[in-house]
């Protein structure tokens, strides 16, 4: 329970912290994002209903934090990130039994992939809204840089949360191989 509460708190803290992380010059000025790595940990560790709760929480806060409203135009509407995180979390749930056996590298790869997919889908929507598709080295690094960062930071997230008490339901699920999802 403590781990689950801290996970929700960490998502909010990461959203606030992201505001103060400067862009990385050697990654083409890309912005590092921490939230997908935290969400992926939750998606692989929590039961399906709890994962959906985390997806709604993460998606709603992400949208509210970065909503871009100009006049009466919204480029990526409120609710879109909820849809993304619900789908990403559902796609990751079948890997939960393997993850609960201690395969931390699944979280690493999932964090990188989900970050890349999130940014790619956001950029595609921005391009569709603006009516033209541009792609150059800077945009490549804005997509790939944060994904590589998520891949590298994921073991730290895993290590931090593995230090916290998991609670009886999660331990039982681990022994059964993801029994809470069935």
């Amino acid at each position, binding site marked *: 329970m403590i781990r689950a509460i801290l996970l929700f708190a960490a998502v909010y803290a990461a959203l*606030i*912290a*992201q*505001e*103060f992380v*400067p*862009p990385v*010059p050697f990654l*083409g*000025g*890309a*912005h590092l*994002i921490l939230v997908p790595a935290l969400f992926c940990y939750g998606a692989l560790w929590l039961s*399906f*209903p709890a994962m*959906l709760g985390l*997806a*709604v929480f993460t*998606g*709603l*806060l992400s*949208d*509210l*934090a*970065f*909503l*871009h*409203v*100009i*006049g*009466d*135009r*919204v*480029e990526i*509407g*409120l*609710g*879109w990130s*909820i*849809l993304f995180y*619900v789908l990403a979390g*559902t796609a990751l749930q079948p890997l939960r039994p393997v993850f609960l056996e201690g395969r931390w590298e699944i979280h690493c790869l999932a964090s990188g992939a989900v970050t890349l997919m999130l*940014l790619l889908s*956001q*950029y595609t929507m*921005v391009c569709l809204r*603006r009516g033209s598709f*541009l792609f150059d080295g*800077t*945009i490549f690094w*804005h997509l790939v840089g*944060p994904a590589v960062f998520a891949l590298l930071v994921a073991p730290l997230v895993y290590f931090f949360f593995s230090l916290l008490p998991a609670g009886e339901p999660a331990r039982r699920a681990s022994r059964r191989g993801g029994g809470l*999802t*069935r």
Partner: protein
Amino acid sequence: MNKLHVSLFAGAVLLAVILLSFSSERMRSWQSGYLRVSNPALQAGSAISGQVEKLQKGLKTLDELEVENAALLAQNNELRAASQLLGDLENENKRLRAALDYRERSAFKLLPAEIVSRDASSWWNTAKINRGFGQDVDTAQPVLTADGLVGRTTTVSKDVSIMLLLTDENCQVAARVEGTNEQGILSGQRVAGNATPELVLNFLNRDANLQPGMKVFTAGVSGAVFPAGIPLGVIKEFRARELDGQAVVEPAVDFSKLDDVFVVQGSK
């Protein structure tokens, strides 16, 4: 997945679809509420970030100290020369006085504001300022410094507002080139590689005789957000395209050193 899981999944998707159907005004109002709730955390983060920045400035490697030493020696020579000619103290005094008097000199009613945070997302150039509707800030109000236009407010909460920077592709400003009849639309880039990217001035005459160094100001067309005469930048390059001309403009404001700004709240 059992029936309960399918229902929960459908519920979450339905919630997302309901939120997506909100009007832009309602979305803005929800975001304003989020900013209001998050304001203490943002202020605390801004203070911590400021302290970390100060600490980073204090910690320097030997190479950095050597570079700094060389720069300081050069600056020392320059200051000696300046002192002999004019007196650097007098100059500095005048410069500081000019900055302080900007608010009084300006033709606009200005509200001073500080940058809380900036550029938190990958695809938009925005910044948050520590002023909101509690200080009579409204949406779509121009924001500037003594050097020129910075951007305009988009979402306004009680004590914090989001500002769309001039360097964003969505921040489009009607602009004119000093000493000519040339007018166009100035905008930023879709994705910037650094804090102060170049701007582009589109829809100019393809035969326009524009030279590097010419100044660009807001045109102030009727009904526009930005009043006329605010400096935007300096032309760096002009190229004729098939149908129109395009100029590359260096911003008047150094966006990498943006700390204090003014919100324009109308004319005096």
